[in-house]
């Protein structure tokens, strides 16, 4: 790849970092791990993205946002490629982005992704309240306002909050 293409690639990554997640606007689609690859050639630009959850309704939004943002800035022949493998995981969310989630009032994923299926969340890691940081919290529901979050309640400060599930 020529130096010019490498430079364009860097520019594109920076543009993508300005596109926020529609549900959690404090983190962008690169931090979220949705953008997997940027490819630049004389034929145009190919952005590879992967859904967080299979039915993530934001996928079409991401595709349109990426296209509009890049095309407004003069990039031509922008193509979006959707992949399923490797499967998206919360392990890809950086520590910095996790901190942003916490400040926004969403408890960030705890620990590494793995297929846990114990009943009633036995042996699972405790989730700290994003408001008072206390660990006296309990699960209210496996699903929150979006598929990637669960509903919790903090028994210490009495605040209900959302937990970004470890996935």
């Amino acid at each position, binding site marked *: 790849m020529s130096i010019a293409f490498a430079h364009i690639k860097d520019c594109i990554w920076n543009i993508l970092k300005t596109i926020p997640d529609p549900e959690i606007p404090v983190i962008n689609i690169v931090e979220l791990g949705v953008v997997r690859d940027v490819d630049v050639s004389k034929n145009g630009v190919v952005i590879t993205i992967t859904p967080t959850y299979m039915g993530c309704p934001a996928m079409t939004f991401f595709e349109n946002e990426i296209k509009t943002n890049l095309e407004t800035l003069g990039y031509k022949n922008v193509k979006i490629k959707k992949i399923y493998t490797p499967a998206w995981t919360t392990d890809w969310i950086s520590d910095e982005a996790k901190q942003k989630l916490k400040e926004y009032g969403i408890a960030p994923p705890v620990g590494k992704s793995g297929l846990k*299926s114990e009943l009633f969340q036995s042996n699972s890691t405790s989730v700290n309240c994003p408001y008072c940081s206390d660990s006296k919290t309990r699960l209210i529901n496996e699903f929150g306002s979006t598929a990637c979050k669960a509903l919790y309640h903090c028994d210490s400060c009495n605040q209900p909050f959302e937990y970004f599930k470890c996935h």
Partner: protein
Amino acid sequence: MEKLNKYCLRLADNAFILSHRLGEYSSKGPYLEEDLALTNIALDLIGQADALYEYVSKLFNDGRSEDDFAYKRPENEYLNFQIVEQENKDFAYIMVRQFFMDIYNHALYEGLSKSKDPTLSAVAIKSLKEITYHKRRSSEWIIRLGLGTDESKERTQNAIDNLWKFTGELFETDEVELELCRLNVCPDMNDIKKTWTKEVHKIFDFAKLDVPSNNYMISGGRNGFHSEYMGFIISEMQYLNRTYPDAIW
């Protein structure tokens, strides 16, 4: 019909019709959080169906899009199991139907994640993460309902007794599964049945619910023969697309 096409269409139709049934319950859940959970599961299922229809559309390669498969087929061309089309009688009924399918999907998709077919394995690995939540959640509900009040136990046992006759179809094997299993594209249904039976018995024991002794089974869905409820789903689901052809939003 090519065997792989038929196999994938069956998988897609099961996810699609079950998703529609759960979606129908939106705003009717026993409380707000439960309403969210049911519709989130419906969303996961429609995501799986979407990925599978996309693959089906590629496999058939006859100009039909994924939406054409979802919205433009008559009832007898849908190849879903009869259990997923059964009506939403009450909450216990919905959870038992979901429990049977979640335990089944978990075992099946675990097998499919090792498939020699790269698209099927990619979809399965991704879906399995979601199905793991579904399975845990519906198992917990069965235990709660079984050990709850007299009424919740009675309703749950009635649902089990009523839905049991549809579970035989989940493990039926014809030339499609035999051939694909030989090619390591899909798992052996006998193994899936063993896992399913073991796990269902385990949760029923825990919840003090009885496994029905009546083993008369109804089938036909996999080959396009459906119960009386299927036509109503199709007419509702396809209404918009028929009234406003190719509407997008």
